[in-house]
């Protein structure tokens, strides 16, 4: 471990929900590298050795309370909270059952609410940064992702509301809105069929930057938003999509 004093997040305490997922792991490792004490809060343990693991079900209020009790007894504060836990369901509203609807809202929206709600008491001690996960799909729709789009729109509105309420307590709240990030979930989005590889290539070429995002791209932005250089950034939705949504639909002419 290089315990250099110039690491910008030294002495900071960070909690990352969904911290064992593809993007979550990249975030944990980056925050760790920048000097923070990092806790991956997730259902299943899968972490870098330098990242601590705490079992956490974001849909469960008691789990949030227990998580924060642990943080209080070990650190008495949290500086950085990243609400990265999330799922998607590839269905229209007609195909979506009420149970599926409730489940995706429980994870993507209620999870952000509950973890943040119980983290606030520990964050207002020293001020801090909350980073939620929205999506470009919270602005414009992809086909057959209806409930997912709706949850991300809700996270966007919640982000602004939290920023208004807790700005005076020196807690900044932002959301990152990724476009297509190259994870196993993305391959899943393009399906199993014979055309899936072709779709994967074709969609990539629609991006002005001609590549998909990586978990590291997202972690770079999390790192910036978490740190003091982003001290005036709050209440904003940070789209990170390789230029995808800067353009009008790309007709194949």
């Amino acid at each position: 471990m290089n315990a250099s004093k110039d690491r910008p997040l030294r002495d900071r305490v960070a909690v990352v929900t969904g911290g064992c997922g593809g993007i979550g792991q990249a975030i944990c490792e980056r925050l760790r590298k920048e000097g923070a004490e990092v806790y991956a809060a997730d259902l299943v343990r899968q972490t870098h050795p330098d990242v601590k693991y705490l079992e956490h079900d974001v849909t469960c209020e008691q789990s949030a309370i227990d998580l924060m009790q642990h943080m209080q007894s070990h650190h008495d504060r949290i500086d950085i909270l990243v609400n990265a836990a999330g799922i998607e369901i590839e269905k229209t509203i007609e195909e979506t059952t009420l149970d599926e609807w409730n489940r995706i809202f429980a994870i993507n929206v209620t999870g952000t609410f509950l973890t943040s709600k119980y983290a606030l008491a520990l964050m207002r001690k020293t001020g801090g940064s909350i980073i939620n996960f929205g999506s470009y799909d919270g602005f414009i729709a992809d086909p057959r992702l209806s409930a997912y789009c709706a949850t991300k729109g809700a996270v966007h509105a919640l982000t602004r509301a939290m920023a208004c309420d807790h700005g005076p307590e020196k807690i900044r709240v932002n959301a990152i809105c990724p476009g297509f990030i190259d994870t196993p979930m993305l391959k899943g989005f393009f399906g199993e069929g014979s055309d899936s590889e072709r779709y994967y290539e074709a969609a990539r070429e629609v991006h002005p930057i001609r590549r998909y995002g990586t978990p590291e791209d997202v972690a770079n932005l999390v790192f910036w938003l978490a740190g003091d250089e982003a001290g005036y950034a709050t209440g904003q939705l940070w789209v990170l999509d390789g230029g995808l949504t800067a353009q009008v639909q790309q007709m194949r002419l």
Partner: protein
Amino acid sequence: MADHQPTGTLAGKSAVITGGGRGIGRAIAERYIQAGAAVVCCARSERPDDYPSEAHWLKADVSCMEDIKRLRSTVEGLFGELSILVNNAGMQIEKTILETTDQDWQTLMGVNAFGVFACSRELIPLMHKGGVIINMGSISGNIADPCLAIYNASKAFVHGLTRSIAVDHGPGIRCNAISPGWIMTEMAHAAFSVAKDPEKARQDALARHPAGRFGKPSDIAELATWLASDAASFATGQCYTLDGGLTAASPLHPGLE
């Protein structure tokens, strides 16, 4: 138009429509006449033979201040005042900034930016009883169409000026912009004709419209009529997108061929 019964939502109002000779502008002129307005169309071209006889025609270029002064005195002479200004005149140049010449800039910004500014400045003083300005923005003012660099930028200017006019000149003047998507005009037909396979390109574009069709000039005219009417008296400072759902969808559409 004579067999149409005016619906009257614009009865007693006077309107100027720039670029009103064809396409969207002409559709607005025809719809305004149907709704009971007295219309002055200004365009750079000669009056087409089949243009509605109720409309007054003024050959004028909105990038030329002398022409705008003539427009102002024409309106003053005809009506003594003005209720509605539709800044519809616009042009596009299909180039990136590297290909765009200084002359291209002067020409396009002269019409799309200066024209909107100058017509508004010269005609607002004629809106003695309050008035409505409707500008033609574009979905490309928010997100970029490739190879239309200064056109896209000029439309963002229109969106910005729309808000400024609404803020500075309310409550007497209401000002809104309409941001059309793909409207089937000669301009759009031309875009498809340069495609490698025009019919395939058309089908592809169509599949990206939740409304299942391209826009028609009359679609824009309907919104322009509502915005000009007293029914829209609380609508000001906005850029209303009318694009058949195109920009509600992600640019990615993996299911498309």
